[in-house]
């Protein structure tokens, strides 16, 4: 295994949680809902997945429990932000603060415990391709799922009727209601999907990236995923590119620390955060591009008239 291959493998590992969380949030935002609670859902997903896998010895149960924990938290968000129309920004912040606290509390007994690592499932044929094979096709189930989700969400939004309805709801909920669509139900479903994806992202962190539980182990990845959705102008294929770009930065800074460029390690650790700011600035400069792609009703509370 040469260095390129090793680096590529770790980049895929680091990118997968970002990709999972961002693709989920993309669907939520295309339905017109801004859920800033990604970080909270992700970390609860991480601790739930770790605890379940540790307790039962089954990685599958770990993954399921991570996804379910994400869904549970997202439904809490939906209850507030969608059903009783609270301010979405504030509710998302509440979810993050609550999730970070809850995960810390649940995870306390698991600190320092050895975790389970997801098995690699080589895909016959593809896994034999040099370099690419080991990096992309000799991986765990969540890596494959992240690829499937990018393609699936992409097709869903562009081709399916349900995807069209979801976009309509994010564009003009009042008009969608006039056409007889159940706006809040559709939005709750989207939020729950986003929760599941964030939970899976957390599960990948605690079952594959670093198979252990540590408080605050998401380290702002939920927020980077949120930035990725903006960065990708709400398009699934660009979310994929963005997630891999940030995954690469995270890994390269680790390698740079190992090599020792004479820079303090904290400067390297700060790199993904600074890269996020720079990416946001570069993208946001183009107001017209952003406006063309932003779901028109994003973040606006919707109260149906009866």
């Amino acid at each position: 295994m040469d260095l390129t291959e090793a680096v590529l493998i770790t980049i895929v590992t680091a990118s997968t949680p970002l990709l999972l969380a961002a693709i989920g949030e993309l669907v939520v935002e295309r339905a017109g809902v801004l859920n800033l609670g990604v970080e909270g859902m992700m970390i609860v997903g991480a601790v739930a997945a770790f605890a379940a896998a540790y307790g039962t010895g089954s990685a599958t149960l770990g993954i399921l429990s991570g996804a379910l924990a994400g869904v549970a938290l997202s439904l809490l968000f939906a209850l507030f932000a969608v059903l009783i129309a609270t301010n979405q920004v504030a509710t998302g912040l509440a979810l993050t603060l609550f999730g970070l606290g809850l995960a810390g509390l649940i995870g306390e007994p698991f600190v320092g415990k050895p975790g389970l690592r997801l098995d690699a499932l080589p895909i016959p044929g593809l896994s034999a391709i040099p370099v690419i094979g080991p990096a992309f096709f000799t991986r765990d189930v969540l890596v494959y799922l992240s690829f499937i989700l990018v393609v699936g969400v992409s097709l869903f939004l562009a081709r399916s009727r349900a995807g069209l309805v979801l976009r309509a709801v994010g564009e003009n909920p009042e008009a969608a209601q006039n056409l007889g669509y159940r706006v809040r139900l559709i939005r709750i479903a989207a939020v729950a999907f986003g929760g599941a994806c964030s939970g899976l992202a957390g599960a990948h962190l605690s079952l594959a990236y670093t198979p252990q539980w540590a408080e605050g182990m998401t380290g702002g990845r939920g927020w980077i995923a949120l930035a990725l959705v903006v960065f990708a102008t709400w398009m699934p294929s660009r979310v994929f590119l963005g997630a891999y770009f940030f995954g690469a930065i995270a890994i390269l800074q680790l390698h740079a620390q190992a090599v020792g460029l004479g820079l303090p390690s904290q400067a390297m650790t700060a790199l993904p955060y600074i890269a996020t700011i720079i990416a946001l600035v570069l993208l946001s400069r183009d107001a017209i591009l952003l406006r063309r792609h932003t779901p028109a009703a994003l973040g606006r509370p919707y109260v149906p008239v009866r």
Partner: protein
Amino acid sequence: MTVESATSAETTTGADAPAKGLAPRVAMRAIAKSFGSVRALTGVDLTVMPGEIHALLGENGAGKSTLVKILYGALKPDSGSVEFDGERIADVSPAAARSRGIVMVFQHFSLFEALSVAENIALALPGRRADTALSEEIRTISRRYGLAVEPEASVAELDVGARQRVELLRCLMQDPRLLILDEPTSVLTPQEADKLFEVLRRLSAEGCSILYITHRLEEVRQLCSGATILRRGAFIAHVDPKAETVASLARAMVGSDVPVIAEERVSERSEIALSVRDLSLPRPGLFGVALKDVSLDLHAGEIVAIAGVAGNGQRELFDALSGEQPVGSGVLFLDEVDIGTRGIAARRRAGLALVPEERNGHAAVPGLALGENIVLTRHGRTDGTVGNGVVRFSAARRLAARIREAFDVRAGEGDPPAGSLSGGNLQKFVVGREIDRKPRVLVVNQPTWGVDARAANEIRAALIALARQGSAVLVISQDLDEVFDIADRIAVMADGRLSEPQPRHDMTREAVGRLMTAGEEAEDAA
């Protein structure tokens, strides 16, 4: 979804139903609806026969929209019954209404801007996707009714007329049995309106009933064979509009004679107060209109009205005049002083007063009290509401009280929030707030949009009085009646260009209509 059969003959045929024996397409009986403590409808009846073009008349706030929303299933009545083709409708929802063939063209467009025409139409057709088959169907129907529409176009790029064609087409593709149109001609040129009437007559001949909501009474006399009149949520009359005059219809709507604005006025033109010289601005953002070589001299003591269909650059012109959009030097002068580089507050200090189109959230903050809303445009040094950076809210409240008194603004006790006022009263308040300053120049965008007839007349009279006192007044309005009522000179805005203002007596509606489409013709010729 449950449908009960009508129980007896007398529930289906009212005394004034036009044809006995034939079940009406729609029969609404004794409909009542309240929103909190506000009674929007009390005991309203409405009957529309198959193939009939029926007008629903009433002022703003008379309850037309509420009644129609009930029919369409978007609102549920508190009491009363709705029958469709003789069947009692027990279940009210937009989906159920649409499955019966009740479709509606909304006044405020209900299209999805970021989606294509075909996607917009697919959303209204159960189970359909925006594929090539649908596009083909759209083209077929659009040819049949002469509604030119490109299925692949994005709605965001269409002008208002084209958007209305999309809405209409979307309705036609649902095989409508009852088509509801809410103020459809308010966004159309007279020529476009005539085309719309042709389509509607053709639909009516095919057996589709049409419920036509408008306040343009001449249209009703031309087009409709029956009319139901509402006033303050109550049923007033069911009439044959062809047997009525415009004046008699207006009287029934308003409940009393509508005062006519004093006709002949001597306009004494004096020096130029506001001058716009070759103002060109690029398209602001995605959905705006570029301004092209707009020039205008506004004299003290006169009212110039700018007519035109919405979305032809009126909003952009207003923003440029107000200073919300910077214009640079050399294009905008107030009393010979170049104000183009100044911000809105500095322009106010120079004597400019402004009333934007949107009352809530632009001219006023709905959540703030009237006294606080005064401060929005009256925080200059000479206004007396601010001293040393501290707001004198008591002085602002006194000012608000004075304006309420002078302009007969009816609002709750004390100092109520702006959002609690009716459209007409809030508009009188924001117009009054500016007139009270005795400005050198007043620019008003859509002064009476969505305002009841009485308040509209009061506002127009106040604008005329202001001009008589020597101020220059620029009115931007879509309402041709209003334009001809109050203007000394009339200009027309089309596709970001402004025509040369002409004295009102030299203008006709036809001429204005031709100017409204001038931009399109120029493009066609090119």
